């Protein structure tokens, strides 16, 4: 049975496809090493157009207008350039009002695509460009520790990891973010104070990794210029012990934070990457898993939400639960040795190696 998977791995090969949904200009070459914040591909996402009515402006028929146009489709023009003119005693001139490119000339009209600031897609992780995707982007590959999270504010950044808390449930206080280095990516357990984010922005930090925040802070966090990644979600959840342990032991290492939100349509999810050389036998981080005996899972719903366990067995058919529901289930063994039955829909595979 397939199940979602969250990777918390000290060593993994990580490969990420970074493409735009429409054609653009790829800015990297195969084999190039990139940083998380390097631009992979740019595209004119929403260019505006200008329509010049050449026939009316020159006072000629639509059929004759083409004879007076001095430009070609595909040609770039600068603001003020002559596009068409009628010479003679009563000469008239049509100029481009903007910098841009002529994209269509038809029936006495000229359409100019206005030059705009292109959208830039960043690499998201540091690594090597393994493959180019024609006009769309590239595949980036790297090795290192991978921690996948639950939510992100959409930003990408990198810096030096500064583990500020001693336990996964520690609350991050405003005074803790001040006075440190400006290239830091801070890591702590929980946060419920908007002042933390205000001071972090003033400090120009490069990122913030937390177990959880209070959900009312989302609007504040979405406006921040640096990435904020939550490993576990919203409310008062501590950071999972596996993620906390891995990042605590990476204090002062370089870290990349891709806080892109979870999107089931594209498969993207927020993640932290700590670039490290890996042993030759280390394989790629899996993207989906199959539930099997002996696998480590996390319970995603109450009761026992967040509890880690090992699959003891997967009973066939449907099992009856105390609330009267008959569901596909897994029997799991908790760290305490207790065995419990959990709906199959309420577990996710936690791929943890230490």
């Amino acid at each position, binding site marked *: 049975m397939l199940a979602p998977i969250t990777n918390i791995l000290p060593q993994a090969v990580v490969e990420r496809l970074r493409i735009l949904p429409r054609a653009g200009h790829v800015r990297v070459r195969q084999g190039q090493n990139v940083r998380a914040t390097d631009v992979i591909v740019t595209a004119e996402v929403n260019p505006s157009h200008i329509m010049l009515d050449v026939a009316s402006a020159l006072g000629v028929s639509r059929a004759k207008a083409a004879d007076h146009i001095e430009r070609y489709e595909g040609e770039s023009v600068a603001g003020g350039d002559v596009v068409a003119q009628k010479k003679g005693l009563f000469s008239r001139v049509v100029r481009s009002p903007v910098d841009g490119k002529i994209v*269509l000339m038809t029936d006495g009209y000229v359409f100019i695509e206005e030059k705009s600031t292109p959208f830039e897609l960043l690499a998201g992780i540091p690594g090597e460009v393994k493959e180019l995707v024609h006009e769309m982007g590239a595949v980036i590959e790297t090795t290192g520790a991978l921690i996948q999270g639950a939510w992100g504010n959409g930003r990408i950044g990198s810096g030096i990891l500064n583990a500020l808390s001693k336990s996964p449930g520690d609350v991050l206080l405003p005074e803790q973010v001040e006075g440190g280095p400006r290239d830091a990516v801070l890591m702590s357990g929980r946060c419920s104070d908007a002042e933390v984010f205000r001071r972090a922005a003033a400090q120009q930090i490069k990122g913030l990794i937390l177990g959880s925040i209070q959900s*009312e802070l989302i609007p504040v966090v979405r406006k921040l210029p640096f990435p904020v990644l939550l490993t576990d979600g*919203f409310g008062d959840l501590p950071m999972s012990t596996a993620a906390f342990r891995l990042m605590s032991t990476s204090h002062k290492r370089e870290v990349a934070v891709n806080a892109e939100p979870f999107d089931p349509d594209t*498969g993207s999810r927020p993640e932290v990457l700590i670039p490290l050389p890996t042993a030759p036998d280390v394989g790629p981080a899996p993207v989906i898993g199959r539930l099997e005996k002996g696998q480590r899972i996390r319970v995603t*719903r109450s*009761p026992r939400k967040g509890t880690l366990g090992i699959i003891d067995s997967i009973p066939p*058919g449907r099992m009856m639960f105390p609330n009267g529901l008959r569901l596909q289930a897994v029997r799991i063994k908790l760290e305490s040795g207790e065995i419990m039955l959990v709906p199959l829909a309420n577990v996710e595979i936690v791929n943890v190696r230490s």
Partner: protein
Amino acid sequence: MPASIVDADSVLAIDVGTVTTRAFFFDAVEGSYRFVAMGSAPSTYAPPINNSTEGVRNAIDDLQAITGRSFINENEVLITPSSEITGGVDALAATTSAVAPLKILTVGLLEDVSLESAKNLASTIYSRLVDSISMNDRRKLVTKVDDILRQQPDLVIVAGGTENGASKSVIKLLDPIGLANFLMPENQRPKVMFAGNKGVSAEVQEALSSFASVSIAPNLRPSLESEQLGPAEGELRRVFRQIYSSRDPGLQELDSWTSGRLLPNATGFGRMIRFISKNDRKKAVLGVDLGSSSTVIAAAHDGHLVQRIYSRFGIGNALESLTKVTSMKAIAGWLPFDSSEADVRDYVLYKMTYPHSIPMTDEDAAMELALARELVRIAIRDAQKHFPASIPELHAGVLPVFEPIVVSGSTLANNARAGQNLLALLDALEPAGVTVFLVDTNNMLPSLGAAAEVNPLMPVQVLETGGLRSLATVISPVGEARTGSSILRVRAKLPSGEERKIDIKQGALMTIPLDPGLKAELQLQPLQRYNVGLGGPGRGGTLKVVGGLLGIVIDARGRPLRHPGNASRRKERNQRWLAALKK
């Protein structure tokens, strides 16, 4: 045994949902078709697999494990036709809701006429309206073009011109479509479906065919007065299949397995609601399907169906849409325990992260049903504007009288106790008069609707043999009176021979036990000119009712429901109502 069953065709129906893929097996048992079993597995249309086939295969594997019957041979091919030796199945049907809604641009001459019809047509499939262009649109041509380029629609529905009516103005409306398509890369150009004046179809083809794939559908507005969506719906479904098959090879395969009959899940659901409405032509039927990514409301009367699909408005990862149209306070107001707005927001965000998870505690179930109430309340209020005028209303602004009300979707049909589910439905829909709540516990109505194409007899018999489970017969008197005053006298003759007389007071919510399938006779005498739908205010009568999991429920809480402003009183009231339907 009926003659038509002698050569019975078994049916395997696949439903690829946003979260779960289900495989249903229907076969003839003892002379009539029955639902035999269902297998399920997580859907795999989304990344990282991006192909529905794996989920379909896993759901069939689960079905094979449950039934002990083989449906797929060692070469991974569907075994068909069926035989006693090899197993297999005779016919296949398929539905899907595992699709991002189609981005649709509607174009029509008049806003209130053809453009409205184009929008109504768009709402019959999983869609999101990105823009509309009409004759009165004041935007410059180039602005319209830029807007189209920015919105990137998947499909443009063009309506306009009654038969033998306007033609030049219809063609003029196409200018921005043609220009935008010209400027787009070929692989991103939207398809165009023309459903207007048949007389200009050829001109539309000529104007756009160089830049777009154009299909022609029957006119949505053959005359100013009449709207006909039905004939164009088939063409729209064909375009829907074409677009989604190109995005998911698994759906493409499923479409070819079913010989091009892959249906939107909501279409299958609507088809069954229409079918049920033909059983008793005097009564209207309401269908509510609350899914993970969409909510569907279908109302049918005498075979005439009105259906609204609210895409990206569901109880899974689409919950964000709900937070934009209601408040956390409104959601918390349905809970029978203290909960802050922050608690509700945390729950919503968590549910969006784990959309397939199932509530296992009373608190989680209550939270989930509070969300369900708001989703359904908002959807039904909008859908109500479009219901057929022929459905009777007991009072202006109150839900018209439907019997039965059919409910599908795991949250409202499965994931809580029957009493919790029924209370959520009564709160959300606020039915009026006498109705029966039927739940589709296996989420099989859409599949039955799809299977009707390959085996029309099967859905009839599956429903007759218990395909739907009755929650209760509900009596909801409508009128005005002080809380606590008598509004209805009920005399119930129960199958045990017992006779009960009950004086119903305004504000009451109570049950009369009557097991599923058992019948009772009710004499209803409304007081204070209350209306129970038996001929007008104050009119009573005798009716035979059938029991359900909660028997007979009398909901005299008033229409519309009034809510105390005080959170503590509201919580106590919710607890009281829940206790009244404790089962």
